[in-house]
């Protein structure tokens, strides 16, 4: 998909305007007729996860300002933006991984199937079983491939017998597209795999506990293009079975794998909409600048 061809070529007046403070910029520089936003389109459906007015503070510093996004269960939602824009921070609020950072404070409302995930009734361990996570750097446990996948089901009491556990491991590895490569060496260390295989192992580990949502935090940033392609293919296959939210640095990747895209900048969510619209016809100036490579 050509990314930049349909965006208006930057004129000289816009280049001058880039130095002018944000508030002075008229938004008329962009096409006037706005298509219905994705939020409006989705408003009839109940989202899998709904974040409303989420802010995150690290000590005194506000890392995320009043973000509201819906995540639907048959779609891949991508979060893009330059480094330090808060997209990973937002992702980590969705399964409360920020709880592990002592100075982090989260405000706002996040729902999973209508339940407040920050309420006292929500057990964080259960939440993380329902909202799984794949990290930036492949981080398999230094245990066997089998143990890596079986660990989650075991601590959650899924698969009481060995046979059941083996079944879960096989199913998860198959879904992660890794089964054929590792079926003969399940007892080998997970670390002996290549980087791309390790990341797919981590995906298998995440889906082994049968989550409803999978959060992926730049899952391909440590991988080569071929391994990246395999992960992207896998994301396509997993879509529909799980709601997927993915943070990525790589705009082409967001365009390839996602149906919804949110653009973050300096802790704010600037724009959220259909991926095709964000990339071809952004409503916000900063989105356009980022997508056309003017910064970021």
């Amino acid at each position: 998909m050509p990314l930049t061809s349909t965006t208006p070529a930057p004129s000289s007046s816009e280049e001058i305007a880039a130095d002018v403070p944000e508030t002075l910029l008229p938004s008329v520089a962009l096409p006037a007729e706005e298509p219905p936003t994705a939020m409006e389109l989705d408003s009839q459906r109940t989202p899998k996860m709904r974040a409303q007015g989420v802010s995150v503070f690290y000590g005194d510093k506000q890392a995320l300002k009043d973000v509201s996004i819906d995540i639907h269960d048959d779609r891949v939602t991508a979060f893009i933006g330059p480094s330090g824009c808060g997209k990973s921070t937002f992702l980590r609020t969705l399964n409360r991984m920020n709880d592990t950072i002592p100075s982090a404070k989260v405000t706002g409302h996040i729902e999973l199937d209508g339940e407040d995930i920050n309420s006292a009734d929500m057990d964080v361990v259960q939440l993380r079983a329902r909202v799984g996570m794949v990290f930036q750097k492949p981080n398999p446990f230094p245990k066997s491939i089998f143990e890596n996948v079986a660990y989650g089901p075991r601590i959650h009491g899924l698969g009481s017998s060995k046979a059941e556990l083996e079944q879960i491991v096989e199913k998860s590895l198959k879904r992660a597209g890794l089964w054929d490569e590792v079926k003969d060496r399940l007892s080998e260390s997970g670390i002996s795999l290549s980087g791309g295989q390790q990341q797919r192992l981590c995906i298998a580990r995440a889906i082994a506990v049968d989550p409803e949502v999978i959060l992926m935090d730049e899952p391909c940033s440590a991988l080569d293009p071929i391994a990246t392609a395999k992960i992207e293919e896998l994301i396509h296959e997993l879509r529909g079975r799980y709601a997927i939210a993915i943070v990525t640095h790589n705009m082409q990747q967001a365009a390839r794998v996602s149906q919804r895209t949110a653009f973050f900048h300096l802790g704010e969510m600037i724009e959220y909409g259909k991926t095709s619209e964000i990339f071809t016809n952004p409503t916000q100036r900063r989105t356009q600048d980022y997508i056309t490579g003017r910064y970021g």
Partner: protein
Amino acid sequence: MSSGAPARRVSPSKDSRLRKRYAAERRFRLAGLFAVGLSAFFLAFLLVNMAWKGLGGFTQYQAAIAIDFPRSDLILDPTAIKGPDAEVVIAGADIEGVLAKAASATFGPAAENMFGAAAVRSVGRQLVRDPGLLNRSVTLWLPVGSKVDVAAKQEGDAASEKLVEQLKAKSALRRTINRDFLLESDATDPSAVGIWGALKGTFLTIMVTMLLAFPVGVLAAVYLEEFATRNRWTDAIEVSINNLAAVPSIIFGLLGLAVFLNVMHLPRSAPLVGGLTLALMTMPVIVIASRNAITSVPPSIRDAALGVGASKMQVVFHHVLPLALPGILTGTIIGMARALGETAPLLMIGMRAFIAAPAHGITDPSSVLPVQIFLWSDEVDRGFVEKTSAAIIVLLLFMLLMNGLAIYLRNRFEQRW
């Protein structure tokens, strides 16, 4: 530069600078080599010196002596030495007098005191083994007393040297392995001393230290590192622990004396109290080593476990501790090895007493190796010199064993991530 001979890339000044740089590097390497050589020399000197002086301690000279038991003044009931009170009966008999008479009869009056406690012990054992000896005249090989032993090995006093010559001339002198040195305990006569009591005391003390300091230290480290919130209190605790690790060991001895003996009235000189005191000393070391090992576990492993829904405790016990174990074990065993060689705090809790029997439990009075070495090195009798060195060899071997164990465990559990 456009014509003629190609320009030299390196100007003369640059050239000399380059030479200087290489010379500096050579000088540095030589200095390093010298430092390594010096340390190796001192180590070799220590080991060779120790072996030279100490290996003699593992051997002893024995002299052949004919004893005519029926005609001696020994009053012993052959049935009594079969019974359970054999040791008491033997101890009551005047074996020493019999040996003195036999010696002066065979080698002249100067030889009257050539046998010591070791020989008496040996005769007693042989009588218990074979009471029939009492009815026979036999020739026994018995360990000689300390003076003669020293004269035979190195240089003794004139009378003993003469006696040794005489014994050698009659080929009534031989050198054997001194098994009693490893199997017996402290004694006043250097020919009869052994280190088993001290070795056992050391072992018991270290066990008490290990059982207390390891779990407490590791749990403290885990809590501080993984569960405690960072605030002024935890900072204060951290600083205190770091300071405790640097406190001189004798202070811990005084603390042990005040708390375990004076307040809690635990038995003096016992491995229990020694172990408690050494545990106090070792714990900060274990806490620091464990915390370092725990922090070096990559956070990505914790994230991964949390991400699949493990609880905090599951993260710690399933992932963090197994990965930190090699570091924890290495730190622990190095702390233990230090405690093993510690003398000062044990002197404070009364472990310098003369204990002639090995401890049966952790509340019996006992000696420990380093204190035993300290006590022997203080003795006047020249026979103790090589016993001291021999005990040092045993202590060093014990330490070597523990450090070897540390390396083995580290390699065994080491995992890459």
